[in-house]
Each structure stands twice: as C-alpha cells, then as structure tokens.
C-alpha cells in the first residue's frame, strides 16, 4: 500500500466533528491523568494505557476512515463496526480504567465544580450513568440497543439519516464503555460502587444469550431483513443473502467470544481476590 493509498484509507467518508473532538479529548485527558499519576509517584503501568489507546484508535478507525464507508454499504461490515464500538473497542477502553485517569487529570487541571450549584448539576448528570450501570437496567439496555438498531424499520432510517446514523454509532460506543466499566472495574467490589463478581458474571450471561439468539435469527433468516443495503447499493457486488448471512454470524459469534473473554477476566479477578485473602490469612496466622 502506497502512502497516498494509506491517506485515502484514513480519510473519513463523511467528516464528523464528534469523532475528531470527543475521541482525542478522551485520549488527551487520559494521557494527562496518567502523567499526573506518575508524578505522584504511582505507576500507571503499561497494559492499561496500551489497552485504552488501542481501544480509542480502533473506535476512531471504524467510524472515521474508509472502514466507515464499508460499514455504511455492507451489512456484515456494519455488524463488524458495531462489534468494535460496542464490544472490542469499548472493552479495551474500559480495561484501561479510564475513569480514574480522567478524574486525576481533571483534578490536576483544577477543573471541577466551583459552587454548590455546579456540584448539584454534576450529581444530576451522574444519575443516568448510574442507572445505565445498574446490573439489570444496564444489561437490558446493553442487548436492547443491539435489538433496537436492528429493527428493520429503524435500521432503514438510521442508514439514510445522517443524524440517526451518528446517534446509532455513538449510543453503541457510550453504552458499551459504560457496561464494560462495570464488568472489568479493577477495584474490589467492597471498595467501589460496582456490583460483586457474581453479579458481573450474571450480567455477562444475561446479555450474551439474547445476542446469540438475534445473531442466529439473522443468520438463518430466509427473508431479506435489511433491504436498505439494496436500496443504497453495496460497496461491492456481494449477494444480499450472503451479506446477511455474514452479518448474522458477525452478530452471533464474535460478540459471544468477547463475552467469554470478559467472563475469564472476571474469573481471574475472583482468583486474585481469593489468593490475596489467603495470603492475608496466612500472614495473620504467623
């Protein structure tokens, strides 16, 4: 691939202010936070920042490069785009423990509520976040959004309206990050507002099953469910049935694998907690 090809690939199909402001802002704040943490003598480590920046980069590429063109004009590529926004990228971002670094950055920049009124507004803004992170509500919203945007009528409109299209993609990303922040929060549940490990495992299973059902339904459906891709033309002349079959598989298999990986991460946190408890008990016994 020549440099001009690469530039053509990286250029957005449709320029979006959201993509060029929100994602870099999140990344810069994270970097400042990591630096402030290091200055305070703590280690930010390598893997958390690596995971976070990789997640942001993947999300940027799927919404603001040539990949977005394919996402708009091939159903299975669209499903791949949402796999990154809602699962892979969002999980990588959450694994970076971004809230801690963002908060540190805000403190070091002296950004925060200055008056009681501002503090109240901030608390009010935190309410929807807390609702979306409630184990039951959050889980229903997590798989519900996938269902919502795949209702054929709504999907049709979302692919044809610039505003709805942006709302669809950003709602997937924001909801994905909020959900995974609960699942992989590294603090012991006792010291945080997050649910316990058992509840987290339940959330994973509870959200995985409806996604598998939907993916299988699309895969085995004989009807052409999403004719918007015929109405708008495809990015290459692939048979509509094949496109839908791949899209169904993309909705079914990789998200289920991601949920399995998330379950392994939670299990490893449980094992670490138990080992820590054993060591404490051992130390006390001596």
């Amino acid at each position: 691939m020549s440099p001009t090809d690469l530039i053509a690939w990286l250029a957005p199909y449709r320029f979006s202010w959201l993509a060029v402001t929100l994602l870099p802002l999140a990344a810069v704040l994270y970097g400042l936070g990591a630096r402030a943490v290091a200055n305070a003598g703590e280690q930010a480590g390598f893997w958390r920042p690596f995971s976070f920046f990789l997640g942001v980069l993947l999300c940027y590429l799927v919404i603001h490069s040539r990949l977005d063109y394919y996402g708009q004009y091939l159903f299975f590529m669209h499903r791949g785009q949402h796999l990154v926004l809602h699962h892979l990228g969002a999980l990588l971002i959450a694994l970076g423990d971004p809230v801690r670094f963002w908060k540190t950055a805000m403190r070091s920049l002296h950004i925060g509520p200055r008056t009681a009124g501002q503090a109240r507004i901030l608390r009010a803004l935190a309410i929807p976040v807390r609702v979306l992170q409630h184990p039951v509500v959050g889980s229903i919203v997590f798989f519900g959004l996938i269902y919502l945007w795949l209702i054929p009528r709504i999907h049709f409109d979302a692919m044809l309206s610039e505003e709805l299209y942006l709302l669809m993609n950003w709602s997937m990303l924001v909801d994905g990050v909020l959900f995974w922040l609960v699942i992989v929060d590294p603090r012991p549940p006792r010291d945080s507002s997050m649910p316990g490990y058992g509840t987290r495992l339940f959330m994973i299973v509870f959200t995985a099953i409806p996604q598998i059902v939907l993916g299988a339904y699309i895969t085995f459906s004989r009807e052409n469910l999403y004719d918007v891709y015929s109405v708008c033309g495809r990015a290459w002349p692939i048979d509509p049935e094949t496109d839908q079959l791949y899209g169904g598989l993309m909705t079914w298999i990789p998200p289920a694998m991601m949920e399995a990986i998330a379950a392994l991460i939670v299990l490893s946190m449980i094992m670490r907690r138990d080992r820590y408890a054993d060591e404490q008990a051992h130390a006390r016994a001596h």
Partner: protein
Amino acid sequence: MPELSFQLVDETGHAVDAGDFRGKVVMLFFGFTHCHDYCPTTLSKLTQSLKALPGDMRDDVLILFVSVDPGRDTVEDLAVYTGNFGPRVIGLTGDDDDLRDLAKRYRTTFSYGEPDEHGNYMVSHGRAVYVFDSRGRARLMILNGQSAELIAQDLRQLIEATG
C-alpha cells in the same frame, strides 16, 4: 436529503447541472445500460406511471437515468437506451468523481464486480428513485415494491402542491 445538485454530462454530450432541470419534477435513478433486470423494469414502471397522469401534467415530469458505469456506457449508448423508454427519460453520466459526489449526496453508492473472460462485469448500485419537486427539493423516495399507480398518485399530489 439535500436538494438536487450535480455536474454531469447528458446523452447529447453536453455538460449539465441540476439548475437546468428546475421547473420540472425530477425522478432521479442510478443504473447502467447493461443491467438486465432492475433498471429496465424500473424505467418502464416509471414511464407507465407517467402515462397514468393527465396529459398536461406529464410535461412537468422528467426521469433522469444516471449511468454509474462510465467505463462501458458512452453518451451514444445512453441516448439509444433511454430512447427505448420515451422522450421523458434523459440519460446522464459523468466521470467517477462527479458520479461519486452525486451518489454520496443521496447516501447511496455503486461498485463493480470482477470482469469475466468477455469483459462483462456486475455493477452494484442503489435501487431507490429520488423524487425532487420543481424547486429541486427532495420530496419522495420510491422503493422497489411500489406500483406505477401509486407512483402516479404521488406525482400528481406533488405537482398539484407545488404548482
């Protein structure tokens, strides 16, 4: 959808833009002349819907057939092809950039398959017909399943509403 705007070449080889078609209700449709099924059936359905209109209204409507296959469709091919569907169908085409601009404007795209040993290839293109009123404002999108009668009804309403 944004109002009608393009820079293309018509079937006589002249450069045209959307302004040249103001004052008419425009039905815009993407296709290619080697298309065996969808393009001819759609064009004949659209011309049928015109026949269902009162005579004086027919003159207020134009069908613009935009070929997205400039590699094969010459201006002459286009003239012959649209001639099969009567005087109210005008063929347009352009270079790849101009065609891509127009397709992107209406959230559609087109692409080409691999050529076979005879050099024939598939073209994937959008299947919607975009209808603009006499001032170039996007008003309707006609999809696959719509009958000629329904299209005629919509056109009649549109012409009566905008005069």
